[in-house]
């Protein structure tokens, strides 16, 4: 797997292409196993693929993506586009404001 910053930039610039590459080349890799021992069955659902390919963090939240992971990735990709401190994070939260407790289940 390539270094994280490279993947972040690739996903920011070309979300659909990166998701397709990820699903084809990376998703089945098992950490700490060589490439020849990859899994054979992991795939996104169509809804997951669409949400990831369109940078739709609201849909990902609704589907139970881990909120910390999504936020951390979004900060890496989009904080630079905002001039005020925390502006990106507050906008991110505002787009989720229609969610009340209990939030979508994040169990895997």
């Amino acid at each position, binding site marked *: 797997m390539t270094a994280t910053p490279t993947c972040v930039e690739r996903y920011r610039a070309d979300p659909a292409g990166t998701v397709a590459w990820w699903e084809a080349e990376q998703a089945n890799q098992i*950490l*700490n196993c060589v490439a020849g021992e990859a899994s054979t069955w992991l795939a996104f659902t169509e809804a997951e693929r669409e949400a990831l390919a369109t940078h739709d963090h609201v849909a990902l*939240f609704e589907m139970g993506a*881990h*909120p910390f992971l999504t936020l951390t990735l979004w900060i890496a990709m989009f904080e630079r586009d905002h001039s005020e401190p*925390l502006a990106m994070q507050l906008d991110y939260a505002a787009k*989720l404001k*229609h969610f009340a407790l209990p*939030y979508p289940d994040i169990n895997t």
Partner: protein
Amino acid sequence: MAKLVAILATTHHPFFYKTSQLPPDEAPPFAAEWVRKVEAYRATLTAARPDVLVMVGSDHFHQLWLDNMPQFLVGKAPYYDGNYYNEEREFGLPRLVLKGHEELSGYILREALDREFDLAFSNELRVDHSITCPIITVRPQNDLPIVPIYTNIFAPPLPRPERFVKLGRTLRELVDAWPSDLRVAVVGTGHLSLELGGPRQFGPHGPDPEFDAKAVEWIANGDIDGCLSEVTLDSLHAPGNATHGFMDFMLMMGLAGYHKADYADNLDLFHTMEAYFTWYPNEGWAE
């Protein structure tokens, strides 16, 4: 036997380091008070003159992933690299190397296994800001060997709060019985109410000031039973979606037992409440 000289339970705010490095004319208005409080808190560890630090924290999906997720894990290595790329980028944290205390790690692993805690272990652990933040705040010279203990407060299913308290009690028994002349301090970090990646994140205060006020009272008073009577895995969703990190405070309460903290302080910051507690177990309890 070893001497448990201090128990520190605190929050780990990743932005402290960056904030503390800013020149006064660039620092936010809360910076000076924050630095003062952290320096006062640091003195509570310095005064205990520890030789080794047991550090309780939680990996933030940096090294531990869903293919192989331990509930509780002890590092046993001669060194630990610290911090990851995203922590450099997002928080401005420095990379650092911490020394390990393999003998104490091995002792805790062996003895806990024999006391019904099947702890995972790692001989190559890169610790993240849950461990490095308290080094930066309470031991910035980074001169003491550590034993890192990771808890899963992140990837459900999680152990229940009672289990965190019980692990704290077990660690207390183990440190008290460690055949060594060394002075041990246990430093654990978690959160009060916290929301990350949800609609309530990054407000002017923590997402649930009422929970924070209660939590501070439970910890300061050593009120383990009061805390356990209200806190469950389900209840922790209400104060904020990352509030399960409070269970690391509960582990530390288990270590300290039913005793008031000798030192308690807190600071209301944007998006979270900072909290600082210290107990001196063998110096006479503050009651």
